[in-house]
């Protein structure tokens, strides 16, 4: 089955990658930006913000799915957009789940060395843009872990995507929901094969990401 790679399987892999890519991209763009801002600034209410993001890190996927479902159902606030049971709404549900994780992890990474980086950079008369470049560069390995964590959560998530996506064949079926379906049908070998593909995708993404953010050694 793995070697023959039938059309449906390729479609499932395609939908999975598209959903994971966009939810990782959006949640990391939002989360890293906010995490960097929170991590390097001291302000009133910072602890409260951290508590909120920390609590949201534990948000159960089905609850996130339920919230998004209610917002996008026909009579929901965004019902007119008719996005329920599409890949787009699956991405939105995943962003709701993943963004707090990215914010919390990023701010924790940044706050660990933001002060010393700032002092060094100000001492060298760096511009604000150069200071930010330095801050991101100095934390690139840790931020890569944050991005991979976000991608890992996205590609492995099942509760929210099955609720808002509906696991529709040729439309919103992804690897995880397909594994669930095949397991329920007793088709264990196919489910296991899908699991292996999922792991291989994760491995390839990890290798590529690590190559992109290679530490200079010697």
């Amino acid at each position, binding site marked *: 089955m793995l070697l023959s790679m039938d059309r449906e399987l390729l479609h499932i892999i395609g939908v999975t990658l598209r959903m994971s890519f966009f939810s990782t991209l959006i949640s990391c763009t939002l989360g890293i930006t906010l995490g960097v801002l929170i991590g390097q600034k001291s302000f009133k209410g910072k602890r409260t913000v951290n508590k909120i993001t920390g609590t949201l890190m534990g948000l159960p996927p089905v609850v996130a799915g339920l919230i998004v479902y209610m917002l996008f159902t026909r009579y929901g606030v965004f019902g007119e957009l008719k996005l329920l049971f599409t890949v787009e709404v699956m991405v939105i549900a995943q962003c709701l789940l993943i963004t707090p994780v990215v914010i919390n992890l990023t701010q924790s990474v940044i706050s660990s*060395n933001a002060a*010393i*980086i*700032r*002092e*060094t950079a*100000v*001492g*060298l*008369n760096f511009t604000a843009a150069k200071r930010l470049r*330095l801050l991101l*560069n*100095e934390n*690139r390995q840790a931020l890569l872990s944050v991005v991979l964590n976000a991608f890992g959560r996205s590609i492995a998530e099942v509760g929210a995507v099955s609720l808002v996506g509906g696991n529709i064949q040729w439309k919103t079926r992804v690897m995880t929901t397909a594994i669930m379906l095949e397991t329920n049908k007793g088709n264990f070998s196919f489910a296991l094969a899908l699991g292996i593909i999922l792991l291989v995708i994760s491995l390839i993404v990890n290798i590529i990401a690590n190559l992109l953010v290679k*530490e*200079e*050694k*010697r």
Partner: protein
Amino acid sequence: MIEIYDITKKYGNRTVLDISSLSFSKGETVVIAGPNGSGKSTLLKILAGTLKADSGKLTVGGKVLYLPQQSLPFGMTVRKNILFSIESRTDKEVRCDEILRKLNLKAFEGKNAKTLSGGECQRLALARLLVNDCDFLILDEPSSAADIEGNELIEGAVKEYKEKNGCGVIMTTHSPRQALDLADRIIMLCDGRVAENGSFREILQNPQTEWTKKFISQWSIDFNR
């Protein structure tokens, strides 16, 4: 010229700095000494603009470069550390090579800066500063981790830079010898206040605190210097 008036700084309830007035001129090397916790680093941070005073006035006339006590080696090669720190100009590579030779870092130029020893890191941190021009160089214990050779290299590079640029140098040190070697003027801080402010001769003649007496007792006096 850098001038401060009625500067105070508190950490919690503890006043770490309370200075009525101080000024620093271009072309002058001022060494700030004092026991641990006397407010030396806090004063330098305020002068460099990385820390805000609770009250008072600070006037800075000119470009300042500042070396903090803990300067971060960037996670790139030693050469890239220096090139990254040079402000946009055409002779980047020449300046880089020159400072690498001057501070004996040429052998490490391809090494990741994070793998350097404490003394090498300090030389690199100074190198990143000295490849740029400035009016005031503020150095917080620039050779605290350096060995004898490293110390000589750092002092030599600072002296040469000052002569070439005509800038003012403000630095802290715990070394009486370094203070005597480099300073045109010495400021002794004690509990956040200025205890002494003058040339080494003036301080020798009329030391105000017990700590100053201990500090200057380590000077081998050469009045013909």
